[in-house]
């Protein structure tokens, strides 16, 4: 069984690192570490010592210039003190079979780095972006999601629906053109979608679809299925009392199941 070594990256405005690490811990990861971006630069930490990378939510650089825009540039141009481009490390990590999970601001980072959706395996090319919600507001509310059973995503395997919170102002997918949007569908790169819980159907209706994202897109995967990025926060539903109606006895599958699936996937290798 493969040892699962999870690395949670923080720094420059990331703020969900603790609950992400906790989710990995309770989901069976063998080792979980929270490291600051500067630890990658100093060389104290190398991505290649890990096989599960979590990019948590937050406000990298305060969302100035657009969510994760500045951080994407930082990742793209950073070199370790030993002179190795950080992007090379990331590429090696991925080529070695590592899995990557970006949540909210982490998803925005993956999209802006071009790691998602990587249609035609064109990694590191920005094909879509995440822009302001139709409401033009940041909002914290719980939403219902359905996983796309046809997607290659290793994190959503066996998951049908989820009920977890969104907490963002820039979560609406904008594709660079119509063909890109069509390709997301054709290649089953849409991993998670906002649904109407009554009908179970994908919805564009606010607030069930909280940002107006086309095709109800809440999360995307890449052609390998080893990268997942999503706007809602699965790690925020890590305990029964996180559920908004738990006092009325309501319960659902914990959002941390996605992280558990990633860990189980690695263990199964």
């Amino acid at each position, binding site marked *: 069984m493969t040892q699962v070594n999870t690395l949670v990256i*923080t*720094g*420059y*405005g*990331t*703020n*969900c690192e*603790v*609950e992400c690490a*906790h*989710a990995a*811990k*309770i989901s069976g990861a063998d080792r979980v570490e929270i490291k*600051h971006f*500067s630890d990658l*630069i*100093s060389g104290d930490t190398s991505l290649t010592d890990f096989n599960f990378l979590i990019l948590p939510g*937050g*406000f990298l*650089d*305060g*969302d*100035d*210039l*657009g969510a994760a825009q*500045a951080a994407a*540039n*930082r990742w793209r*141009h950073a070199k370790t003190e030993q002179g190795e481009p950080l992007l090379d490390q990331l590429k090696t990590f991925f080529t070695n079979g590592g899995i990557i999970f970006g949540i909210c601001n982490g998803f925005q980072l993956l999209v*802006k780095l071009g790691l998602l959706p990587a249609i035609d395996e064109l990694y590191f090319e*920005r*094909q*879509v*972006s995440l*822009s*302001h919600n*139709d*409401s*033009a*507001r*940041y*909002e*914290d*509310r*719980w939403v219902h999601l359905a996983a796309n059973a046809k997607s290659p995503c290793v994190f959503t395997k066996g998951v049908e629906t989820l009920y977890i*919170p969104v*907490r963002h102002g820039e979560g*609406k997918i*904008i594709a*660079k053109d119509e063909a890109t949007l069509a390709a997301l569908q054709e290649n089953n790169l849409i991993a998670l979608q906002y649904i109407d819980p009554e009908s179970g159907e994908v919805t564009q209706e606010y607030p069930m679809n909280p940002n107006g994202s086309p095709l109800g897109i809440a999360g995307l995967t890449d052609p390998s299925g080893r990268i997942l990025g999503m706007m809602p926060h699965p790690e*925020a539903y*890590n*305990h*029964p*009392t*996180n559920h*908004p*109606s738990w*006092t*009325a006895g309501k319960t659902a599958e914990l959002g941390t199941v996605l992280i558990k699936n990633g860990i189980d996937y690695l263990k199964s290798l």
Partner: protein
Amino acid sequence: MLRRIEAGLREGVVDTQGIKTANKIREALGFDVKEVRQVKVFTVDGLTEEQLATVVREAALHDPVLQDAALSPVSSQADWVLEVGFRPGVTDNEGRTARETIAIVLELEDRESVSVYVADQYHIYGDFSEDAIASIGRDVLANELIQRFEYKSKADWQKEPGFAAVAARVSGQANDEVVNLPFSTMSDDELMAFSRENTLALSLEELHTIRDYYANPDVVVERVKTGLSAEPSDAEVEVLAQTWSEHCKHKIFASKIDYTDTETGENEVIDSLYKTYVMGSTKTIRENKGKEDFCRSVFKDNAGVIDFNETHDVCIKVETHNSPSALDPYGGALTGIVGVNRDPMGTGIGADLVCNTNVFCFASPFHKGELPPRLLHPRRVLEGVREGVEHGGNKSGVPTVNGSIVFEERYLGKPLVYCGTVGMIPKVVAGKPGYEKAAKVGDTIVMVGGRIGKDGIHGATFSSEELHEESPATAVQIGDPITQRKAYDFIMRARNKGLYNAITDNGAGGLSSSVGEMAEDTNGCRLDLSKAPLKYDGLRPWEILLSEAQERMTLAVPADKLEEFMALAERMDVEASALGEFTDSGYFHVTYGDKPVAFLSMDFLHDGVPQMQLKAVWERPEHKDESVTVADAEQGNLLKSMLARLNICSKEYVVRQYDHEVKGGSVIKPMVGVKCDGPSDAGVVRPILDSDSGIVLSHGINPTLSDYDSYWMMANVIDEAVRNAVAVGGDVDFMSGVDNFCWCDPVQSEKTPDGHYKLAQLVRANKALADFCTAYGVPCISGKDSMKNDYTGGGVKISIPPTVLFSVMGVVKDVNKTTTSDFKQDGDKIYVLGATARELAGSEVAEELGISAAAFPKVDAESALARYRAVHKAIGAGAINACHDCSDGGLGVALAEMALAGRTGALINLDAVPVTEEMNATEVLYSESASRLVVSVPEDKVEAFEEIFAGQAYGCLGEVTGDEQFVIASGATVLVADNCESLAQSFKGTLKF
């Protein structure tokens, strides 16, 4: 050379922010705006043409999927183009990020060689006059205190598109000028004029005390040795003014008060309200609790600390940021929240941040009529404050778990913005108790975080005055949550490695205050201002010393850890500067390089301020007692009007825009019920994710009662805060309190002819604080006061109603034993706990019906305490399915909120409500008697429940029904019969912005 990079959305991309802006203009001014398209403008200095081209080509500053960027203006068919940028020296967060990003993309070694200034350009479609477009700029899009705007008509834009590049740069030369002030020869009038002109807020007595200090020959001898003159330097006077300000020294709370109660004819002298009542009651409570005392550190640090569990303590601080929020609601509130975050960060050896609470007091956002000069419309204040706290809280990654908004017309004069933060400290940090700290002689003074600018100079003294037409713009600052977050990440790591001995934040008074306070540990310091990093040149030494520029912490770093400390800071991209050292010289000694700037005896600095002598006279105000009559047939409509009232209606519009779940420990959220739209009584969080222990956070506030008797205002506020915490399952025996007084000036003067009465109100509130905190066993562990919440201008004076926010932080052992207010289960029995009296003064219904009432709610602490303990027991035993406090709007509103939150009807028999006197239905429904709760009890637990409450006042009013019909009857008369959804719509309609 200055160049502009302009980035607009690509064709076909919907401009959601432009739509929002258009709506804002329509709502604020009623203009028929057809469309707004927004463009981001980066004015860049310090790059070559080739570098600029690279920035655009590499999409450093824009998103090529969404935007097009160019070094030329966008073409536009808009009727007007209006551009808003910052004035020089105002914090420009986006500009900072843009500069860093450019440096990264161009791989520049020196970020400082580049400057970026960000502006927003609005392309506005619609048929407007030039006056109208100027109004859009002035009244909606820009705050001229901190921003400038310019505009061009379509014709002008077609002729010559774009605006000239402007750098919002502060130009100045490095400056080490220290001016000596001839206090010894100044007349009283001259001294007072000097104090006024320099916003020092020093009284004549204080000025004399300062003058006398310098006249002392011993002082002169010591001063001459350091190279200073016998007269005070500008920096010294500024330091004293700041340290002795009402804001920092709480002189009114520390004063000697001659208090006369004309009702009883009694007279007494109170030597410090603070020591007598606030500290005094906490001391008594701690003694009473004996071994059960959970206080760790109270009143001496930036936040009060109590016990949490085996591994951690928790702390809390609540601040106000009223004056800055009045001038610039966004910046003021943003700074308020990121500022109060630094209090726990600087408590003990440094706390992790857990959650925030925010309470605002505004005039009605629907206010009509002329505004006095300098005041902003309450809707604009609300929006600005809401957004400031949104950005401050969300970007800092601290959940906002509790709060409220109070609306009252007198807050037009000054809005109140209360911001509070809870932190958590490990019991042991690097082998030492986490809640303690002390600088040691020889430790280096290190400043960490942001840089120093002119921002916030005189904040402490400015907030010690009323707001007037000439209030200084420099008192306003804009916070930078990301710079602070970076510093926080660094400090937590340095803390865990044991790299420093003490830490405090830079708030009011800046370095002067933070270093001055820490120097009390060692009895002295030597500070070199020339080593302080500045945002721009041109600050004089006293300005560096007093600047309240944000995002800075001051630490005491021991010599053997300094190198590691500085290296870690550099690695984590955080600016840290060694500015001097802590000494035991007995002096607060400041230099600029070798040049002496200030040399003040520590004793004089901290204890030299003379005690104020004040007079207070209590005379009970008269209020008519009118009868309340509402026809039975009107009761249904009255309930809906009550639910829609500003002080009762849903605040979901604000709540949703605050992250209340980050950190993953959310247990009881601000909105509850099946559709998450019912009001919650208190917030509960689980700060340690692998533990089920929780923190309960609640508050009470009720300014209208101050118009009747501030003693009972305070009693009700404490009762409400405790009751809210009890309603979610809190344990009254494990609760601590925080008192935040916001008063109108209570010092008798020409400006304040009713000062004796206002001070008597303050005395009475303090007496109640001591009485009720002691009765409940809830110790105050921290607090703050803000005493000058008045406005004068345009011949008008507006004083806020005396307002106390009482916050409660409690500990629950098991979060699984908490609950919410929504009805959950058909067949549950509904009980009201506590009796109802005819107490309508200050109530929402009296206001709604426009009647005057005389009897206000009183608190019987003994019966209330027994009830609160019983509720805690019953919730723990699973005998309560829903619990809600009765406060604004009384029983009628509480019941309706529980039904609408659960979308589950109820059948209520009003005749079963235990009452203390004869009352009609309206009075029973809407009286605001204290200490009452409504609960629903599962049928099979009724017996157990009633046993727990045996001997107490309660009534079984009916039951939860499954049919969504909410019915209140009295005898055979149905008073209210409505659908839960319809009640919810009334509750949610008012602030549906």
